[in-house]
Structure formats: C-alpha cells, structure tokens
C-alpha cells in the first residue's frame, strides 16, 4: 500500500503542476496581453477555466493530505524550515482564487475591477514561483537542520540561485501550459494567433530558464546535471522531452492544439518523472540528512486506510471530473447562457 500512496502523491503533484499550473498561467499571460485585448481575453479565460478551476486546485489539497497523513515527518519539517515561502505561496493562492471569483461576481464594474485584476495577475506569478522555489529548495540540500541563526535556518535555504531559478522556470512552465491550452479554447483566428505567439515565446523562456537551472546548479556545485544524466531512465525521459520539442513547435505553429496540449503535458510529466525517478525514495534532501518516503512513512495501518480512501475516492472523483471537463469542452459555445451567467454585470454596463 505504501507504493499506492506514493503513486498518488506523485500523480497529485504532477496534476497540480499541470492543471493548477495552467490555471495560474492564465493569469500570467494576462499580464502580457495588450489593454485593448484584455477584456476579451478575460472573458475567454473565464469561460475556459471557470467551471474547472476550483477542481484543479484540489490536487494541492490531496498532496498535502497525503503528506501529513502518510509522511508526517516530511510535512512537519517542510512546514518548519520552509515556513516563509510556504506562507507566501499560500498568500498567492488566496489572493488569486478570491480575486478571480470576486471580479466576476461584483455586479458593480467600477474601480474595484482594477484592483481585482492587479491582484489576480500578480498573485498568479507568486504561487508558481514559490511552488518551484520550494521544490528547488527541497531537492537542493540547502535546508540546514543544524542552523543556529534565523537567516541560516529560515531564509538562506530558499534564497539561493538554484531555488530561485526553479521558481522562474515554474512560472514559465505555467504560462506556457496556459497558452497552449487556450489556443484551443479561442473562438476566433485573431485570438488563436495571440495565444500561439504567447505559447512560442513562453516555450523559449521555459527552455532558457531551464538552462538557468543547470547553470545555477553548476554555480552552487550541485551535481544535478550529472545525476540526472547518469541515470538511464531519467536520461531517457529527458531525451524524450527534448525530442518532442520540435514536434510541439510544429503542432503549435499549425494550430494542432490537441496534439500541442498532449505534448506540453507530456514534456512536463517527463521532466517531473526524471526528477522523481532519480530521487526516489528520497523526497527531501537536507544538509546532512535525507528524508525518504520509505523511512518517513506512517505505520502500515495508516497507509492502508489512506490508500483505500484514495482508491475509493478516485472511483468517485475521476469519472465526475472527466465528465465535467468533457461537458464543458463540448458545450462551451452555448453563448447566450454563458454571457448572462458569467458576466451579467459586464453586459449591463455596456
């Protein structure tokens, strides 16, 4: 059952990055949309992610629950040493979720809209950055349980070149995922080109910040590159991700958006898989100590109960979630009810 629980943990983290990430990405690309097109793109975003965005964030809750029930030592030490970046990530989650909903449910489309938009856009950067930053810190060995001073214990671990580079990389990935997703959601050719161009730019940025990760790992004398490349399975996963890049470019350029979505998801999955595979069973690498999933696991009785709860839960969740996504993909263009339902106020202002 331990491995069932571990599989769920990895899958939940991957899905959070993919779906939650694309969700944050929608806010990220809003920043790079010209004012003239913003209103339209906001509407599009709302229609595309409105019904599913809340479900996308449940993957984070699932991951957290798995961690504190199944691997309490990991949850509690991360909570202690990464208190500050975790709090900042939370701040982003709160600000973004509420601003996204509030801006659509505020019937007065006045000055506050500007505030909601600002909060929405900037908090969309905060969460992915700290998500990546935390992931970077967790695998970097920078957490120092023996630290004596406040900065050494609670600031320096996550304020390093490497964790910051991973944070930037995560922002780009999220923006990229959102752009690729939204190409297929756009109603007209102009929008499609808009998102396609964004996808291309964000892909270039992702590759560049990916390079930054290896550079910072080199500067900080981490063996990351060697370690990932010396493992055959991880190497294969990374090679597959790289090979699929030109195909992805082709797909994006020619608006094969379904293929582009699959490939983008595939690449992110491969990167995460390479990392998880190389690290396994380690999960947190600290200065002088390693927390592995096997050693920190809760007693078997707990893991059994957790595993059964997760399996039983997926029987209910997955079909419902699939049907939700499927229905709204299919019925998206039912404009009349959409506009009334979602932007009643906006309509009236005009």
């Amino acid at each position, binding site marked *: 059952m331990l491995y069932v629980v571990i599989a769920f943990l990895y899958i939940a983290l991957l899905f959070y990055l993919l779906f939650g990430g694309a969700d944050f990405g929608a806010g990220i690309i809003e920043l790079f949309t010209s004012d003239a097109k913003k209103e339209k793109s906001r509407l599009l975003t709302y229609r595309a992610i*409105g019904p*599913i965005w*809340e*479900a996308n*964030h*449940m993957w*984070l*809750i*699932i991951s957290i*629950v798995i961690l*504190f*029930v*199944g691997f*309490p*030592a990991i*949850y*509690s030490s991360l*909570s*202690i040493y990464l*208190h500050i970046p*975790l*709090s900042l990530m*939370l*701040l982003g*989650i*709160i600000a973004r*979720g*509420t601003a996204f*909903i509030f801006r659509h*449910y*505020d*019937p007065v489309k006045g000055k*506050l809209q500007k505030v909601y938009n600002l909060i929405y856009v900037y908090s969309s950067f905060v969460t992915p950055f700290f998500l990546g930053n935390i992931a970077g810190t967790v695998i970097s060995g920078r957490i120092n349980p023996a630290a004596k001073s*406040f900065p050494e*214990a609670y600031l320096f671990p996550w304020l390093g070149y490497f964790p910051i580079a991973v944070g930037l990389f995560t922002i780009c990935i999220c923006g990229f995922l959102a752009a690729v997703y939204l190409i297929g959601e756009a109603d007209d050719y102009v929008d499609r080109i808009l998102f396609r161009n964004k996808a291309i730019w964000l892909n270039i940025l992702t590759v560049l910040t990916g390079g930054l990760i290896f550079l910072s790992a080199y500067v900080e004398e981490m063996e990351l590159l060697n370690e990932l490349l010396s493992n055959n399975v991880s190497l294969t996963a990374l090679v597959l991700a790289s090979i699929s890049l030109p195909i992805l470019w082709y797909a994006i350029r020619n608006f094969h958006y379904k293929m582009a979505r699959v490939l983008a998801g595939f690449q992110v999955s491969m990167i995460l898989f390479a990392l998880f595979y190389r690290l396994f069973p380690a999960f947190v690498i600290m200065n002088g100590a390693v927390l592995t999933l096997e050693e920190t696991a*809760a*007693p078997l*009785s*707990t893991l059994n*109960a*957790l595993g059964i*709860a*997760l399996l*039983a*839960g997926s029987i*209910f*969740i997955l079909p*419902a979630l699939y049907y*939700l996504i499927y*229905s*709204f993909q299919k*019925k998206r263009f*039912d404009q*009349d*009810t959409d506009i*009334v*339902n979602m932007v*009643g106020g906006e*309509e*009236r202002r005009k």
Partner: protein
Amino acid sequence: MDDFIAARSQMALSLGFHIIFACIGMIMPFFMAISHYLYLKKRNDHYRKLTVAWSKGVAIFFVTGAVSGTMLSFELGLLWPEFMLHAGPIFGMPFSLEGTAFFLEAIAIGFFLYGWGKFHPWFHWYTGVMVGVTGLASGILVVAANGWMNAPTGFDYVDGEFLNIDPMAAMFNDAWFTQALHMTLAAFVATGFAVAGIHAFLLMRGKNKPLHRSALKIALSLGAVAAILQPISGDISAKDVAQRQPAKLAAMEAHYHTESNAPLIIGGIPDEKNKIVNYAIKIPGGLSFLAHGDFNAEVIGLDQFPEDEQPPVLITHLAFQIMVGCGMILMLTGILWLFGQWRKKPFVEAKWFLTLLAFLTPLGFIAVEAGWVVTEVGRQPWIIYGIMKTREGLTPMPGIVYSFWLYTFIYLSLCGIVSLLLIRQIQDLDKKETPLPTYPR
C-alpha cells in the same frame, strides 16, 4: 505577544473566519436546491431569480471557504508541526475522506454554476444538491478530526510514543457524534437565520416581495426546526463532556469546587483569582441534573485538576453563556415563527417581526463562534486531550507575531471585500430586471 499566544490567536482567527464560510457553503446549497426544485415544479419566475441570486452567494462563499480551508491545511503544519508529526497518521483518516468530498464539491459546483441550460434541468438540480451533500459531508468529517483532539483514541501512548495506530478507531472517537450533530444543526440555525434576516430586511423595503417571502420561508423553515432541535443536541453534548472532559464542563459552568447538588450558574463574571462567580443567577442542583440527570449527583470541579491543567475559566464560561443565550433567543423566535406559519397569523409579516428577524441576522454565527471558543479554549492546555500540551506542538520558528499580523490583515481584507460584494449583490437583486440564465424551451 509571545509566539505561543500569536500562534494560538492566528489559529483561532483562521478557524473563526473559516467556520462562517464553511457553514454558509454547507447550508446555502440546500436552500438553493429547494428554491430550484420549486422553480422546476412550479415554473414561477421568482424562484428562478432567487436560485440564481443564492447561487451567486454560494459561489462567493464557496471560494472564500475553499481558500481559507486550504490555508488551514497548511497552517496546521506551519504553526503546529510537532502536533501534526504525531497526530497526522492517527487522525488523518477523516481528512483523506474529506479530501474526496471537497473535490466532489468543487466538481459539483462547477456543474451547477456554469450548467444553466447546458444539461437536463433535473441533472442540473442534482448537481446543486450534491454541492450541499458533499459540503455537509466535508464538514462532518473535519469535525471527526477535532473530536479526536477532544477524545483521543486509536493508539497506545507508551513512553511518549504513539503505538498501535488504528485510524478507523481514531475517526470514530467518542466525541465525533455529539460534536458533529451539534455543529451540523448549528450550521442550519446560523445560516437559516442569517439568510432569513437579510430577506426580512429586504421584504420591509417592499420590492420583489414574492421573492423575499419565498426566500424567508425556505431559510427560516430549516433554521427554525434546527433551532428547536439544537437544545436536545446540546444536552447530549453536555452529558458527554461531563463524562469525558470534566475540566471543560467545569470551566464552561465556572464550577470551581467539586460538590453534589451543584448549582447551575447562569451569567455572571468568574473571578479567576478568588475562584468565585459574581453577579450570577444560581439554580440549585441544576448543573448536577444537566450533567448527570440527577439533582444530587456530584459534579467534578476545577479543584480536582492541577493548576496547570485547568482551562481558562473566564473566556470559556462567557463564551458558553453567549452560545446558550443566542441559541435560546433563536429557538424562541423559531417557535414563534413556526406557530405563526401554522396558524396563518398575520404577525409573521408585521414590521416588528421582520425587524426582529433582521436584528437576529448575526446571532446564529455569534453562537457558532462562541461554541467553538468553548470547545477549543475549554480543551486547553491540551492540544490532544490528556496526551500533548498545546505548547509542545508549537513550531520552533520565531517571529510568529508577524505571521499573525499578516493573516489578520488577510482575513480582515477578505471580510471587507466579501461584505461589500454581498451588499452589492443584494442591491443588484432589487435594482432592475437582470437577464437570467434559463433552460431552453
């Protein structure tokens, strides 16, 4: 403020904030589903308008409840990592089930809010009902985790180690049923009276009368029935607490000295130094009867516990008085209203009665907050009753005071914005005919 007090205050603030949104998020969907049902059956347009208006409220409260709940799942670790290290594997079962319920709720709300005209009307209705059912299930499950902190079971505590963990036994702890029953009813009472109060106020303003009349009826029927059942649940809870956590009961009642034929102390201000209660009404034997069903039964007082294992009396006692007081007022109002409905008395729409309802809007939530203060402060100094002290669970990271101020700022801002949004939504409701989502003919 030291880190310990800051951490406790932050937790109290977070839970106190979350519980309001959780209650409304759990109960409003049922009101919405009833109104939706009436619309589908009678095709009266004001039911549709009401359903849409309430669904907007649900959307706002759900998202705020969801983010504050997410915050809590992190704060448990950020503030109490030592507690979670030990408690996580034991009381995690309800949380893992709650994860499923919450996920389903998020899916259901996606279907409901965006599903107007896209699905068969009854499927659409069903998803609305599911929002309520899964929300309620989440709430009941989370209470199981709190119940475990009050009645820890499902493990052996040997030399500071938690052995032979049985997560199912921990979930079905002794406190779960009484707490969950009391909380669920409280959520119906608080939300019912709050919603009814707002619509009573709007009814007095005279616009959209059929809509507000229906809204008031739906909300208050459920709220009033729950308010009448609540004292029974309260009695079960009191007897249970007397058995399991005599120190908590003693603090609730400011019962300092163990005695038989113990008086019930109503109101009053406990003097913690001299261990007496000033200005209180005392009913001889009342406490003995309420706690054990016998006027002469002995009730354990705080004197049976060492000084460092006694909960704060002043706060617990006052909170308990506030909770019971509010509950009584709501119960009486509920009875009055049900009577009025039954005998078709005109007073149910008289100005004085509507004004009364409008003034009672926050009362249920005050009772909910006070009740949680009783449960949580009354458990102190323990985080796991009798096993682990709250202070032992605290994070070693210094500077929690800053975190407290940050979270206070966040919660105050959210409160402000949500209130503003609600006011605007309500104003919008009566302003003009707004385009409504509908079903294709």
